[in-house]
């Protein structure tokens, strides 16, 4: 990867040209050339946007490609733009000593995405947290309950249309 570490590459074409032999990109393209929607290499971090319907396949692909450790996962609410939610998965490779970010975009109307707990059981609490605070449902999660807020809470506090203080 050498020199390309330092400069930013924005857009899928630039990343494919700048990082031609990156193991995660290579594996994702080999899995399904359509799955990779967008990519950027910004501030030393590689973000790969994959189709929301293929997140579980993408997760198991990068896992097989050496990105063995699920580190973190959360969502960003881009209200009122569409698609509304961006899910960011941070995956670490113990062998390459490198981290990648998988992103998936989900619509704001009844948001739902496949759970990656079959690939990494460690995503369990993280998906429950995103469900709790953003109201995104995870298909295939076996215990999708609120985790931080009380069980009978109404609303999802980390959404941008939920006020920081005062009455809802």
């Amino acid at each position, binding site marked *: 990867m050498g020199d390309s570490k330092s400069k930013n590459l924005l857009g899928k074409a630039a990343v494919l040209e700048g990082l031609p032999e990156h193991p995660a990109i290579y594996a994702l393209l080999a899995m399904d050339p359509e799955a990779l929607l967008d990519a950027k290499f*910004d*501030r030393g971090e590689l973000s790969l946007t994959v189709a929301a319907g293929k997140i579980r396949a993408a997760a198991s692909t990068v896992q097989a490609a050496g990105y063995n450790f699920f580190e*973190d996962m959360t969502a960003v609410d881009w209200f009122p733009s569409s698609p509304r939610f961006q899910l960011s998965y*941070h995956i670490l490779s113990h062998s390459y000593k490198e981290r990648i*970010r998988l992103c998936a975009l989900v619509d704001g109307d009844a948001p739902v995405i496949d759970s990656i707990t079959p690939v*990494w059981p460690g995503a369990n609490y993280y998906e429950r947290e995103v469900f709790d605070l953003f109201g995104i449902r995870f298909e295939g999660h076996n215990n999708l309950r609120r985790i931080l807020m009380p*069980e009978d809470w109404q609303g999802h506090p980390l959404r941008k249309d939920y006020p920081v203080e005062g009455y809802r």
Partner: protein
Amino acid sequence: MTEQIGLPILELPVAEGARDQHMVLNMGPQHPSTHGVLRLVLEIDGEIVVRLYPEIGYLHTGIEKTCEAKFYHQVVPLTDRVDYLGPMANNLCYSLAVEKLLGLEIPPKAQWMRVLLAELTRINSHLIWLGTHAMDIGALTVFLYTFREREEILRLFEAISGQRMMTSYIRIGGLAMEPPIDFLDRLQAFIKIFPEKIDQYSNLLTGNPIFANRLKGVGYLSPEDAVALSVTGPPMRASGVDFDTRRDMPYSGYENFQFEVPTSTEGDTWARYKVRLIEMRESVKIIQQALDGMPEGPIKADAPKVVLPDREKMKTQMEALIHHFKIVTEGFAVPAGEVYQGIESGHGQMGYYVVSDGTAKPYRVHMRYPSFATLQAVETMCKGRMLADIVAVIGSIDIVLGEIDR
């Protein structure tokens, strides 16, 4: 929209067909060995744990939501309150993330001071772990000794930042202020006697047959499970997975320091105990190297629009006063983008994911804290073991509920 409200908790644990033999027991939220307010819903068969559900959220204060309403520099004091046993590590991780967004260069002296303070924080965190862990097991004496040394660390924190626990000393762009004149000498004196104190703890515990019997072979976690369940830090290394962010993905100048990363292949609570004891000794080595090679120079980055000016400059220079006024009243804009910064805290992998939309307030701050993921592994460690082993396991993974609930 339609809400999915969770299943009632008490309907969850008992397995089908076992309702007349198994019992559901609530351990916590006010149990002394749960280190805060952790509630464990246990399904037990006699004294054997069949299933275990941690229930968390009792300390949830919505810090991530609050961050979105503050300027970037106002978030620093909020981070102190997340992992309240390792304030400097929180400050460091957040500051590094924002500095990455801004593209700031941090002067060498500030970097070395940060490493030194992060390691002091690790010792602080491990001392509390050791004291409370031993106390849970019934060895009350060690608690008094570890808190004796922790008191000295808190005094050092107070000397450098004015606060014992909520330090907010590491700021975006450097440090809050120059350390006091005698700080490094006091730290040197502490570092000189501290290895001896670790020997003391070790003498009290390592050869103690009661302590050893409560820990050896208890709470086994295989390396595969550790990776699958996203366990990080000392619990992961005690299971034989050799990865330490300080060594493998260095930040804040850690590449300039020589230290060993202790690992073990046993994977039980005893291994976690041994690994943390060695980690404290390694932290002492790093602090010694930082003290010996402390560079001269400024402690703040040269970025007047981001870093608050020194007090004297503010009172004598017009420009400094303007910058001070602007930073305090309207913050500073951060270029749009997203970064994730991971560091090795006392409990494991800490990470801040900061998303900026180009304004003076963070669009999203997500905090990845190690205890949150490690708690998932408690069921794996405790399944099929005695009820009393839970206390040893919870102590050995060193959880802080403030960082789980945020």
